[in-house]
């Protein structure tokens, strides 16, 4: 079934069209974005149960261009009489005396827009709103009880799920676009003690759709408990450079953190990225082809158009090792003279749009995982990434990984190191890739920040890769 558009957005649409017309009559360019997001979050652990609303947001943002300058106004109350007030607020913002002497202002030409009328929706099988809260909690409680019962060393076992459904309406002089999207994320986390340290293992689950996706979590309970029990025997990492096999989640973190942020083209505008110097050059092994795009995969960052009314793309960023292009929001594309790629995203209507990743992943290779492990003389199998940080200017990598499993003479020895900091120079790491497995997996439970804020839903992944990586 198709996700139905928000009744609130449909009700406000006539007013929003009036607002668009009022703004377009006064400014060289004007757009209106309306957002209505609803969802629920559920969490069950040994000692706690919770049901919440998640990040429910409902509001509007208008963007105008006047005298070459852009201004935006975000608000969440719109009634029949409030249109003149919104127009006045934007005009006051453009006239505000906020810039100290000695600082200038950027100058933009209006964007050229193709007339576009669009309406789209993703699909689902079981409507989350048709399922009682108590029934969801009962399913999560069963997973928790199963996890806790598996071994008395398990300190805690957490099962959680969130679903979110949003409708966005984008209006400008040339565009009238509506989309409705729903996704579900979830996961299980097991905790156990190692001396004074709490060790945790985590297995995620995510996808477009509704409550039908919850069933996928059941198979994750036993492996999650086994992993945390393994972690209670872990050792501190011995710093050094290793031959590594990365699981699809770790590959995803490398794709996203190490490379993806470096090709966000608002970073090109600011001279904050090395990537422009490498366009058309090898930045990775010829085995590597990398995609980003809201329509490049069916995952939690899938949408039909971005928050600036640009249709979703499937951008091939790296083609057989050669850097082809970056990804871009509309304002950056105007500055650079390039085409926007449908990557202009806001945390919500209340925040600015930046160039942001969506579904970001490596294409599969032709190798078998068992052959890849067998080819390692001495190295590590990396899994359970926890976080990463970008460094587009200098292409440094920081990824935190929870588990490194020792490989000796082509076999996993059972020895485990944790936690592990993965560092290096991005092109060195990507050029060192010598094998890629056949299956691609994407995970979409995480959020991505720009610096330390502006959180948006993303997915990333790829196949298992074999590379040389510095671990500490």
């Amino acid at each position, binding site marked *: 079934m198709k996700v139905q558009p928000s009744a609130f957005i449909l009700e406000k649409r006539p007013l929003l069209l009036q607002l668009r017309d009022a703004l377009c009559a006064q400014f060289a360019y004007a757009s209106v974005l309306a957002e209505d997001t609803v969802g629920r979050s559920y969490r069950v652990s040994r000692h706690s149960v919770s049901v919440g*609303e998640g990040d429910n947001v409902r509001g509007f943002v208008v963007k105008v261009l006047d005298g070459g300058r852009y201004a935006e106004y975000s608000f969440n109350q719109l009634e029949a009489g409030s249109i003149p007030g919104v127009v006045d607020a934007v005009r006051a*913002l453009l006239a505000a005396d*906020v810039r100290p002497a000695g600082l200038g202002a950027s100058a933009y030409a209006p964007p050229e827009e193709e007339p576009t009328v669009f309406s789209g929706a993703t699909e689902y099988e079981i409507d989350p709103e048709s399922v009682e809260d108590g029934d969801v909690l009962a399913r999560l409680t069963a997973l928790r009880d199963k996890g806790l019962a598996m071994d008395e060393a398990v300190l805690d076992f957490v099962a959680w799920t969130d679903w979110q459904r949003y409708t966005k309406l984008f209006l400008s002089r040339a565009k009238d676009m509506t989309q409705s999207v729903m996704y579900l994320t979830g996961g299980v986390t097991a905790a156990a003690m190692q001396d004074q340290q709490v060790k945790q293992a985590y297995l995620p689950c995510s996808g477009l759709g509704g409550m039908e996706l919850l069933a996928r979590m059941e198979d994750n309970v036993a492996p999650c408990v086994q992993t945390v029990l393994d972690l209670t025997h872990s050792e501190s990492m011995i710093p050094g450079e290793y031959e590594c096999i990365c699981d699809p989640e770790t590959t995803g973190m490398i794709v996203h953190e190490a490379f993806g942020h470096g090709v966000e083209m608002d970073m090109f505008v600011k001279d*904050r990225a090395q990537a422009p110097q490498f366009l058309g050059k090898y930045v990775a092994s010829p085995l590597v082809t990398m995609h980003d795009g809201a329509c490049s995969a069916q995952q939690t960052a899938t949408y039909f158009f971005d928050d600036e009314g640009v249709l979703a793309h499937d951008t091939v960023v790296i083609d057989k090792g050669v850097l082809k292009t970056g990804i871009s929001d509309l304002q950056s594309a105007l500055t650079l003279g390039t085409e926007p790629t449908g990557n202009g995203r806001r945390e919500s209507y209340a925040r600015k749009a930046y160039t942001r990743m969506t579904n970001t992943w490596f294409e599969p290779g032709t190798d078998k995982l068992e052959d890849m492990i067998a080819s390692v003389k001495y190295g590590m199998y990396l899994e359970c990434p926890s976080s990463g940080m970008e460094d587009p200017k200098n292409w*440094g990598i920081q990824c935190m990984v929870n588990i490194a499993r020792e490989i000796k003479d082509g076999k996993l020895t059972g020895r485990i190191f944790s936690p592990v900091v993965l*560092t290096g120079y991005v092109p060195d790491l990507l050029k060192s890739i010598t094998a890629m497995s056949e299956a691609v997996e994407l995970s979409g439970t995480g959020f991505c920040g720009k610096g*330390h804020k502006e959180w948006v839903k993303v997915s990333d992944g790829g196949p298992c890769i074999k590379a040389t990586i*510095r671990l500490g």
Partner: protein
Amino acid sequence: MEKILSALGALGVEQYIVTEKHTDSLECFYVKKNLDLTRRADTAVTTVRVFRPFEQDRQRMLGDSEATVRPGMSEAEVRRAVERAWYAAGSVANPWYPLPAGIKEPPRPDGGGFAGKSLDESMKQMTQALFAADRAGDVFLNSAEVFMRRTRTHIVTSAGADVAWEKADVWGEYVCQCPAPVDVETYHQFNYRDPDTASLTADAAHALEMTKARARASAAPVTGTYALVLDREQMRVLLGYYVDRAGAGMIYQKYSPFRLGENVQGEAISGDKLTVSLAATEPYTDFGAPMADRPLLEAGVLRTIHGGPRFAHYLGVEPTGQYRAIRVDAGAAPLETLTAQPCLHAVSFSDFQMDPLSGHFGGELRLGFLHENGQVIPVTGGSVNGSILDCQGNMTFSAERYRSASYDGPLAVRLEGVSVAGR
């Protein structure tokens, strides 16, 4: 508020917390020295948390859930939202706990230094202070985002609270760039409750100076074990371990072994003993009780378990609300003493992290100064991976202090025996 209280009454909800929050934010985005975008956000959101007592397996329970009420919602919409939360709370089987009493007071005006000034005026003043540091030419501000924010909060609870207050602050981020000899950048954040223009200019000047140093750093340190000196914002991250582990939720769920009156810094302490206070950054808790500063650690001994009403009740301690800032006693040693013996002074990381569950801290090194053989050598790259459990017995804090919105304490600390992966 009237619509919400009416809906609560109609449903027979006897225990609730209603929080209204209105935010007015003025935002300026600079690329180099050009204003690229000006934004304003004017938003209002009300959350209603309902608490529902019930029995399960002869045990007294209290479930809770919340609903968001937005401007323009009709009375029927408000009632539906609250009703949904009320039914959800009936499925949330947590053991019973009391909702703490709140107080009723007249609204508190903003007591900070931005009070009485327009957001426009304050924006111009703070932007000027930030760019005042950008004078050298060979190193400069690549980009900056400045947010002036004024919030009004109003809390009403079934336990007698009716409090409201206003608060303004400035926050944001900036990136410093030094193009030669190697083109590098560093990333920085700021947050001030007062128009502390001198601190913002001084912090930005320090950041620019460190960026110049990063441009001269050409190699990672050699892999090995180092004495590590951390400073500034890394201090709050490092010492956040003690704040997190002293949380009622962490302790009740056995994620933390901390106990009141116990020496949580460890028994064998050859270095400085930690004295830390929790500093209130809001006048009231999220359940409408007055919020006060509290001692967290005194010479390494835990004095306060902090947190909300549920886990506090389970542990038999007073609910305190959520703390976002700490004050720490400084040490006796000048910074130059901390770096007088061989060490790696880590100035900047990609993202310095502390895992309060395991006690591990670390990150990728963007800039450090290697002090050895009488030389100070800038280094970049590689990573630090340490454990507070291994280091806490031998920490030396600087006498100099550093202050930000969430931290007021020693500028730096020296830790012994930390693993570094480098060349």
